[in-house]
């Protein structure tokens, strides 16, 4: 058995699980945070993307034991005081989803993408960086629009704060 302590969405958590437990299952089943989805289990589809120590990773291909001591952000940790994160708000405004199954992974990937590229994102870059996230409904068009809008809004917010 593995004893796990980590920070999830700003909260210190501790738990015990089988050594073979995947991080995504620890998050969903031990912590009850079911916003992170499970798709392929093999790093292909991106529906399980979370932030681990600030970087987007695929939680289906990480053992919970490997995440010992890390800081995790899941989709549940983005909204602050009832206010949607700018990426969530942009997905809502631009209808960047249909069935919604891939959406948590798309949003977490977008948050990391905007962190790394900021105002340098363009459509080509967004489409290239979405290669690890599969959506079977939308054709990606509104997802790309939402990410570009969020990047612009967050860039604007940063400028306003400076």
């Amino acid at each position, binding site marked *: 058995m*593995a004893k796990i302590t980590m920070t999830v969405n700003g909260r210190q958590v501790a738990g015990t699980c*089988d*050594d*073979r*437990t*995947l991080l995504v*299952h620890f998050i969903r089943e031990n912590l009850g945070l079911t916003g992170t989805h499970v798709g392929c*289990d*093999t*790093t292909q589809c*991106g529906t399980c*993307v979370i932030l*681990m120590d600030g*970087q*987007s*990773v*695929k939680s*289906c*291909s*990480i*053992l919970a*034991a*490997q995440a*010992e001591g890390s800081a995790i952000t899941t989709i549940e940790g983005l909204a602050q005081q009832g206010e949607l994160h700018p990426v969530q708000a942009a997905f809502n405004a631009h209808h960047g989803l249909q069935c919604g199954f891939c959406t948590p992974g798309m949003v977490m*990937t977008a948050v*990391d*993408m905007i962190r790394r590229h900021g105002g340098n994102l363009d459509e080509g870059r967004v489409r*290239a*960086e979405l*290669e*690890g996230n599969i959506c079977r409904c939308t054709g990606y068009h509104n997802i790309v629009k939402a990410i570009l809008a969020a990047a612009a809004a967050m860039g604007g917010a940063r400028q306003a704060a400076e």
Partner: protein
Amino acid sequence: MKPASFDFLCPDTLEETLAALADGGGDARVLAGGQSLVPMLNMRLARPALLVDIMRLEPLRRIDTSGDEIVVGAGVRQAELEAWPSLSRDLPLLAAVFPWLGHVQTRARGTVCGSIAHADPSAELPLSLVTLGGAVSLRSRNRKRKVKADDFFIGMMATDLAEGEMIEAVHFPKARPGGGYAFREVGRRHGDFAIVACAAVADDKGLRLGIAGVDDRPRVFPLPALDDDQFDDAINDIAWSLDARDDFHASARYRRELVRGLGRETLKEASRCRA
């Protein structure tokens, strides 16, 4: 539970790690970033009795320059080498390869040496190591040895790694002054394993073409200096010398055709880039 049961160790020292691998024998596997191994565990294609996590071993998490080699430790993640400030100067082939290697999220976790250990015949990093003429440092409780990349890969996901041994580092020869380097691949989707990938080097040692995705391991072929009208015949001979097979993704004939096309493009580009 997706994976079958295993014991998990995360040692703090290399000595403990090597002892655990020695005791575990053929049922023990090293776990680094896990981006190849954990999917294999999930599909139960790998069922080790013991996993030994090496990511707490700080000495393995370094990129060092040693003479004319770049030495990448077993704990160095792909994203860390991708972001290494000297990459485009010292390893321009890898700078060209990284955007094709998995996805942002898998590069954030996966290690360089892990991809070498996994030895997928279509993977980009084994191809790069073989094409550049690199080497692999292996370590077990009782011995240390360094194996040439071309001797390390012995077949489909099979390497020269012995029981109780682990990769300690891989050695990439530094780019030679004025050398030209090129990489191209064709896959079903960007970020998937390639159907065929080609890497070419043109430097003062001559012209080399590396090919992945055709034989059961990456292969490299030295070529003499060629006139333009000799290129096609030389690459065609190479394409036919490989053991191309039909599979779910592509026919043997298509693979040979890709070798001709990508081989020509990469060799031309590497030659053009040669100062």
